[in-house]
């Protein structure tokens, strides 16, 4: 059961990181980018359409992670503490914290992306998107390392 949930959590996270990266780059790429360049194509996509998917994927990923965390606490954490993986535990703590803070800004993020593109929310929309992108990337990388920690760096 835990393995199935972990794999599902990983798959949802992959979809989420793809969507948020695409949206963040589309938001931040300079407007004078050549239309047929890599960034030009990124900018060309309607980034607003990703907002609903990102919101749903973030919620799903958080929910799955919260369930998997129960198994982690009982079955994995004692082993990590025994092996003195203190830094990994610290990074995982930060992942939990960042994820929850991201959860809090999710309604504001969703709201900003459902306003007209020329509205006064543009700056806030970009900021919240970048913050969420950072949280998702951090969580993805830490989760990946934790998943492979018995082989990572050993």
């Amino acid at each position, binding site marked *: 059961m835990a393995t199935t949930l972990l794999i599902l959590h990983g798959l949802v996270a992959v979809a989420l990181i793809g969507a948020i990266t695409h949206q963040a780059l589309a938001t931040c790429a300079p407007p004078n980018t050549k239309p047929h360049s890599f960034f030009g194509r990124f900018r060309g996509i309607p980034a607003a359409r990703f907002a609903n998917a990102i919101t749903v994927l973030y919620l799903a990923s958080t929910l799955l992670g919260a369930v998997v965390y129960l198994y982690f606490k009982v079955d994995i954490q004692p082993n990590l503490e025994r092996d003195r993986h203190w830094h990994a535990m610290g990074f995982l703590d930060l992942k939990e914290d960042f994820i929850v*803070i991201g959860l809090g800004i999710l309604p504001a993020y969703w709201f900003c992306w459902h306003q007209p593109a020329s509205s006064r929310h543009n700056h806030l929309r970009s900021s*919240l998107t970048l913050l969420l992108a950072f949280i998702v990337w951090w969580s993805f990388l830490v989760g990946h390392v934790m998943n492979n920690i018995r082989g990572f760096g050993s």
Partner: protein
Amino acid sequence: MSASAVRRFVFAFGAAFGLFYAIARARGLALFTVYPAQAIVLLGTHRSRDVADPVLDFLAPEMYWYGWTASAAIGALVIGLVAALLPGRLYWFWAWCVWIIPPMAMIACVYLTIPWFRL
């Protein structure tokens, strides 16, 4: 609820959530404590080591993360509702808060995590 009130609610909620989470994390204010090994949830913050020898802590590991999240969510909900009831001209204040407070809360969490890196 008007669009303006929704806007104030979501901005205030996002800002307050980060602030309350950092406070709950720093002060250990979990609404409930989860003991996954025993499948028990207790209201409030509880520590195994307060009732049993610390060396037996691994038998009943406690989890506060869910409780901190619930505490922050309730606090943020109240602040969000209050913000929705306040005048619309305060919009800029809530927009500023949701822009600045979550990153500050993340920095606070980094500070609170430092002990792991000193072990």
